[in-house]
Every structure is written in structure tokens, then in C-alpha cells.
């Protein structure tokens, strides 16, 4: 899928953002399977707001945001669900796991949510968990896992579904350098496997991926 932004400005940040230069706000930007985008965003520039706009969680903006050819705010909820099941995947900064479900159940949920057959068999959960070093907590309730563990669970959850665009909001914020590298390699592998593009937002520069587009928010 492709996401295009035209003159998008979040209404709550309008005053602030109109004064400062940005390569995303009040610009024309396109994200798609061919793009490996890094968006560098200092605090307070609307980084998480942008992620929520892209994923369709918020619509308090002016301008036009399209998923493929449809205006996102015109799509009905069942169509949006279909996109989220098979075209667009997300790793939230605030992780958004079900605290009382186990790590495995959280991942499994996203695997079987497809109305079509699941993209991966359930053995993949174990494999990915081993790769990221969280296989020992798979059957533990997420609420009692550390942030680092939860973040890796959220990453695996985003990767067990089909997608052509992956959106990541500070995906490694709770990980040390070594674990972040492992996670980045897994993400890159999964994106390549699907021919998918990604958008990563973060506060600083990084070298986790071979980005082909750099944007300053």
C-alpha cells in the first residue's frame, strides 16, 4: 500500500508548526513498499501524532491523507480493518499490549486476526522469540514483563502478520544496542521477505537500517 500526505497539519499543533520548517508537515510526502524512511523528530514536533495519523488512529488534521487512492477519513471501519490485517503493521511507542494476556497470546492474536488464513504458522512465534531472546517469557503475562521484553514482544507481534508497509515509533527505545541490532536485523529480514517498505520515527540519527529517505519533521 501507499500512503500520501498533502499539506497535512495537525490542528492542535497548527500555531507551532506553521512557523518552523518541516519536510513532512505542510508538504507532499509519499510512503510505500519501495521506501525505507527515517523521520527524525525532536520532541514536541508531533512525531507520535504523525504515526497515529498514518495508521488512522487520529484524524484531527487539515490537508489530505490517502491510503492508496482513498481518503483515509472516508474509509469505513471494516475496510480500515482489512488494511490493518494485511497491508499495514505498526509498532507503537507505548507498545499497547494486553497486560493480562501472555506474551504468546498477544502475538498469536495478531497472527490469527486475519480473516484470511494466517500468514505464518504458530511455530514462527517461538523462532522469532528465540532470535530476540524473549522465548523464556512467552508464557508470562505481559503486564509483569520488563519494558525491554514488552518492546520485543510488540516487535514480534507486528511481524507475524502480512504487510507492505511497517510503521515504527521509537521501536528500540527500551533496548540496549545489541538487542536493538538483533531486532533491526529481524525487521529488515521480514520487510525484505514481503517486499515491504517502512517508516521509522526517532529522536536521533541511527544506523540500524539502510534508509533511502531521510526526513526531518
Amino acid at each position, binding site marked *: 500500500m501507499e500512503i500520501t500526505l498533502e499539506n497535512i497539519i495537525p490542528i492542535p499543533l497548527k500555531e507551532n508548526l506553521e512557523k518552523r520548517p518541516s519536510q513532512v508537515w505542510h508538504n507532499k510526502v509519499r510512503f510505500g513498499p519501495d521506501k525505507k524512511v527515517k523521520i527524525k523528530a525532536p520532541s514536541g514536533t508531533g512525531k507520535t501524532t504523525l504515526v497515529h495519523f498514518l495508521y488512522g488512529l487520529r484524524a484531527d488534521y487539515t490537508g489530505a491523507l490517502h491510503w492508496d487512492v482513498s481518503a483515509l477519513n472516508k474509509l469505513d*471501519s*471494516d475496510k480500515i*480493518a482489512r488494511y*490493518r490485517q494485511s497491508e499495514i503493521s505498526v509498532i507503537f511507542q507505548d507498545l*499497547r499490549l494486553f497486560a493480562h494476556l501472555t506474551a504468546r497470546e498477544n502475538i498469536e*492474536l*495478531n497472527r490469527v486476526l486475519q*480473516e484470511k488464513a494466517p500468514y505464518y504458522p504458530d511455530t514462527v512465534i517461538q523462532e522469532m522469540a528465540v532470535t530476540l531472546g524473549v522465548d523464556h517469557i512467552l508464557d508470562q503475562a505481559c503486564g509483569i514483563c520488563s519494558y525491554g521484553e514488552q518492546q520485543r514482544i510488540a516487535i514480534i507481534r507486528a511481524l507475524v502478520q502480512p504487510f507492505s508497509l511497517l510503521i515504527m515509533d521509537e521501536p528500540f527505545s527500551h533496548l540496549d544496542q545489541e538487542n536493538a541490532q538483533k531486532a533491526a536485523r529481524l525487521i529488515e529480514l521480514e520487510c525484505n521477505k514481503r517486499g515491504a517498505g517502512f517508516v521509522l520515527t526517532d529522536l536521533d540519527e541511527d544506523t540500524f537500517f539502510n534508509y533511502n529517505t531521510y526526513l526531518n519533521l
Partner: protein
Amino acid sequence: MLNILLKKIIRTGAGRFRYVLAMIGLTVALLLILTAIQLQSNYWQLLKGNGAKDSIANFLVINKVVTNQNAGNTNLTEEDIEDLKKQPFIQAVGVVTPSRFKVAASGGSAMPFYTDMFFESVPDQFLDISGGDWKWDDQTQYIPIVIPNQFLDMYNFGFAKSQNLPQLSHELVKSIPIRIDIQTPSGQKSFYAKVAGFSDRISSILVPQAFMAWANKNFATEPPKGASRVIIRTDDPSNPKLIEYLDSHHMTTDMEKTRFSKYRQIVGFVVQVSGFTGLAMFLFALLIFSLFIELTIASCREEIRLLVTLGASPRQLRRFLMKTFYPANIVIAFVVLVILSILQWLLSGFLAHQSMVISPFISWFTIAGAVIVLVILWWVHVRTIKKQIAGT
């Protein structure tokens, strides 16, 4: 797998006790509503059925009130009869045709008795006698006659007891040939008759209409007299309009028949009370169900939002919630139908001893009623769930 996970996420624990109460309420409500339908249908079956034993079908014999002023002139005119036929509460009117000749009956050697008597006839559909015996043509050996049950009762329990005579059963009476002597203009003619049946409806001695027409034509010694009595069929003898009509036209009827109207009023009352109570309980059950669904969804609002964020479609969630909440209703309806089937079977067995025939199975109306209730429940569930999911 998805449903197992959804069940863990959308927990229905909140207000479980109230839900169980609502379920019990629905069971009782459904039982009352369907009982009302079944009773009404049983009642219709007894009323409208044309079986030989339709013991409470409503036939009334109507004649003018005999007063000092009109004694000797109590015939119903053509206009009177036409007017009766026009009344909406009267389904059929049959003229009671009197014989216009003198008749005497004697028992022969088997049962020595001799009496002057009379014949009347009514159209066959007003008789509770059916079967091959009840027909006559000029080849028939015996004239079939119908006597009132009361005659035999009077003989068996009054006359025979007091005179030390043997009591007679229905079968025995039917087997005795009776000699009938008719005074014709050309002298006396003899026939043989047999009792073909006993009637509770008409206190008269009845012969088939065909015989009456033939005999009146050939033996009449008197001019046509017109009808002094008619028999009517009505679906509701307790209808105040009927009583009012009869009063205003100076007619009267067998008031004993209104005895049944007492039962009818009781049936009607029971049907109404259980129907309305059931309906009220059903409405409350609906209210509680929708509140329970709202409560469940409201208490899981965050979880449902996250599910939608992850890509669960509202359709998936609606389907899951329907699967969670609806099947209990089908189970309840099924259980209630089974209970009613058992009750109906017992009732039909019990009534069979009272010579009232109702089906041992519950009626299609009852099943249709259950289906309609399920459809209403389904609609309320779908609507509530849709509204609530859209609201998260």
C-alpha cells in the same frame, strides 16, 4: 483460536448474576407466552374442530319466548330467519322442520311400550352424529332416529329405578327395532326405526332431513306450519351481542349451553393473563439483555479499542459477541418447547378421558411464536451490539 483469545480479552464476568436472572426471566416469559398461544390453539381446535366429539362446539336451539299474548303463534318468520343469518356472531342457521303428520311408536314384543310422538329434522351439519347409519332413502329398512341423551338418562335413572325395570345402555337401545305408525290421509302406515344416536344439542326426536321431506310430502295431514325453532352455530355463545339480540327479538335459547361459556371465559382469562405477563417479562428480559451487553462492552471499552487498533474488524467483534450472547436464547427456546410438548402430551391424555380431543403435539402456532421471539431477540442483540461497537 481467535475466539479463545477474544474470550480472554472481552470478559463477560461483569454482571453475570444479573444475566442469569435475566435468562431465568426469559425462560418464564417464554413459557407464559407460548403457553398462552398453545392454550388458545387448543381452544380453537376444540371449538372449530368438526370431529364427532367436538363437545363444546356451540350450537344453540332458538325459539320465541312463549307468553300469554303469543301462545299458539310462536313461529319464526322468514324475515326473522334471514335476519339471524345476517348477524356476524352467527355462522350458520338451520331450520328445525316439524313433522306434519301423527306418529305413534311401539316397542313390539321385545320391549312393550306405546306412545304418541313427533319427529323433527335439522340439517346434518348441526348434528353430533356422524357415520353411515345416519341416512335414509326409500330403500332403507330402518328409519334412523336420534333421541336426546336426557331421554335415556330420565329412563335409566328415574323411571327404570322406580319401576324396577332394567337399565338400558346406548348399545342396547340402538339395537332395538321400534315400530313407527304414521297416520296418513289414506290410513295407517307402518315403518321400523332404530336409534342411530343420541344428541346433547337438541331436545327433540330427530329423523334425517330426507325422510322428513319425503314423509311430509306424502303423509301430511296438516298444512305447512313454518318453523317454530331454528338451530344456530356460533363461535361464541357468551357473546353479549348474541344475548342482547335474542332478548330484543323476544327469542330465547337453552341457557344451559352458556355453562361452557364459563370455561371459555376462564380459558380466555388465563390466556390473557399469561400472555400479558409473559409479554411484560419478555420486555424486561430484552431490556436487561441489552443493558448487559452494553455493560460488557463498556467494561471492555479499552480492550475493544485496542483490538480495533490491531486490525480487528467491527464485523469480527460483532460476530464474536453474537456467538457469545445469542446461543443461550436458542437453548432456552428449545427447553421451553420441550417443556410445553410434555405438558401438551399430558393434557391431551387427561382431556381424552373427558371426551375432549386435542392434539398430543404442540401446535405450529406455538413453534412459530418461539421462532418470532427468537427473531426479536436476535434483532435486539444485533442492534445493541452494533450500536455499542460503533460507540467504542
